[in-house]
């Protein structure tokens, strides 16, 4: 099979999903090929990186492709695919990928599945994905088609397979003028903490009860060398800024330690933190679903436990 992977980059950096797509492509291509496609204004550096994991890398370069635009992306991809027929096109299930993949699939008249966490090609094309916000895993069999488009969840296909592909300039230029203009970025406020990069996260839920109690979590976080994050109600109440929200409508985090204080463990929250290396939950309700994903749980009142823990940690530090 010819499995194509559309690489993704933003503001000068290759998104790791690009390599993950190739890892998957290599594992399902059989005696076919894994081929990366990288689109932009100057993509040589990305192409070289991708070539370490692909049998072939297609470069599509033009000034107008500097910023991602779905109309231009689909236009140049369709030009490439009119000559180079893919069996499967893999796209990252990022906001960008989940936008242009359905566009592309419409043009290719291809079935499309988004947010796949498993792809099995042994007997037809079978894809596993979560629905109902993570409560349910489904296996979907795709009807026979010439080409399939699948978007892949980030962080799933991490096992690398080295390759050494050649880089080819596809010599393709956009043939349309986009109707949507990119105006600029909304720059995040300065002084912001990026919770997705933190090693240790102390996360608070509605159980923290009031903005004034956030201090307690801050204290614990600073002792552990971590940062404070929260569940959605905490953000909605304005107790923490929006960029501290963990979950499907916030950030996905994977710290070494995730300490959940007074968080019930709704799946919308769990989807954003379940891959943390060590999860410790403190909740007074022994039935709280958060205990289902926690490695260690403490059933108790955070207002008793956290001050005590702070004290113990202080002692330990001397």
């Amino acid at each position, binding site marked *: 099979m010819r499995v194509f992977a559309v690489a993704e980059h933003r503001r000068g950096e290759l998104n790791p999903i690009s390599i993950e797509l190739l890892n998957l492509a290599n594992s399902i291509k059989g005696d076919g090929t894994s081929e990366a496609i990288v689109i932009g204004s100057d993509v040589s550096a990305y192409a070289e990186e991708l070539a370490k994991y692909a049998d072939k890398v297609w470069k599509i370069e033009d000034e107008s492709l500097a910023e991602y635009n779905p109309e231009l992306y689909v236009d140049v991809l369709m030009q490439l695919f009119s000559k180079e027929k893919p069996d499967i096109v893999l796209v990252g299930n990022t906001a960008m990928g989940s936008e242009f*993949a359905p566009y592309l699939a419409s043009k290719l008249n291809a079935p499309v599945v988004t*947010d796949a966490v498993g792809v099995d090609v042994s007997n037809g094309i079978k894809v596993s994905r979560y*629905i109902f916000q993570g409560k349910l895993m489904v*296996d979907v069999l795709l009807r026979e088609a010439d080409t399939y488009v699948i978007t892949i969840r980030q962080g799933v296909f991490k096992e690398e397979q080295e390759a050494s592909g050649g880089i080819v300039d596809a010599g393709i230029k956009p043939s349309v003028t986009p109707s*949507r203009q990119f105006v600029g970025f909304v720059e995040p406020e300065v002084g912001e903490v990026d919770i997705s990069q933190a090693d240790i996260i102390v996360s608070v839920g509605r159980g923290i009860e009031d903005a004034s109690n956030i201090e307690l979590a801050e204290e614990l976080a600073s002792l552990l060398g971590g940062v404070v994050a929260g569940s959605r109600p905490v953000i909605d109440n304005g107790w923490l800024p929006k960029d501290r929200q963990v979950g499907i409508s916030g950030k996905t985090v994977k710290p070494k330690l995730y300490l959940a204080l007074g968080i019930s463990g709704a799946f919308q929250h769990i989807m954003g933190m379940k891959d943390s290396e060590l999860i410790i939950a403190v909740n007074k309700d*022994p039935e709280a679903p958060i205990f289902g994903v926690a490695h260690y749980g403490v059933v108790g009142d955070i207002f008793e436990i956290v001050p*005590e823990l702070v004290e*113990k940690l202080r002692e330990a530090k001397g």
Partner: protein
Amino acid sequence: MDIVVCVKQSYDVQQLKFDPSTGEPMLAGAPKKMSDMDKRALEEALKIKEASGGKVMAVTAGGSDVKEVVKEIYAMGADEVYAVMDDALKDADTTAIAKVLAAAIKKIGSYDLILCGAASTDGYSWQIPAKIAANLSIPLLPNAVSLKVENGKVVTESDLGDAVYVYSASLPVVVSVMLEINEPRIPKLSAILKASRKPFNQLSLSDLGVEVDAKMEVLSARMPKVARKNVVFDASDAAKVDEAISKLVEELHKENLI
């Protein structure tokens, strides 16, 4: 301005129950509600209308139970509702649903702005807005966390995960909205009562000239399993707090976290 909002009647995932023996969801008779992001899309449409006039129309597609969501749409304040009802749509995939919605929008005929939720509460595929835009050959401004319409132009702040992008395009456009864009109104009781008496426009697949062919088939559905070592320390009464914390600190030491 003519605004069309696409609304899905989705499963109320919070209330979904699972068969403990098979791990399968008990979908028969499971409660449904208006999809969360679609509700924001409707709220945004109503706000635009209140600020600068126009008409708010809603389109929904599904089995006969979409009637329930029609009431909810009217109660919030939409002017007209179009419902495509057909049992074939119950299990239809996103390609089919988008085709149906786009056909219904074409049938309505006049549209400047099309608003949808970026993803549904249950399926969560994030595909419908882009597919509607593709079907209508108009641009999509995705994942809006803010939206402005001025002089025939739409400007959004679009949250694409890694950053918030500012996009603009001329009408007509499709805009998909995120939860953050607004806080939807809670309809008044009187509006709810009135809503159930309002007639709506019922469309069939043959009215729209659309055929539904599935591109995929669901083989199995089950609860994902999480394997955890799951050690629980009981600190439910004050006397046990000390011991529980000592154990916890010990574990943190073992994991080299302190």
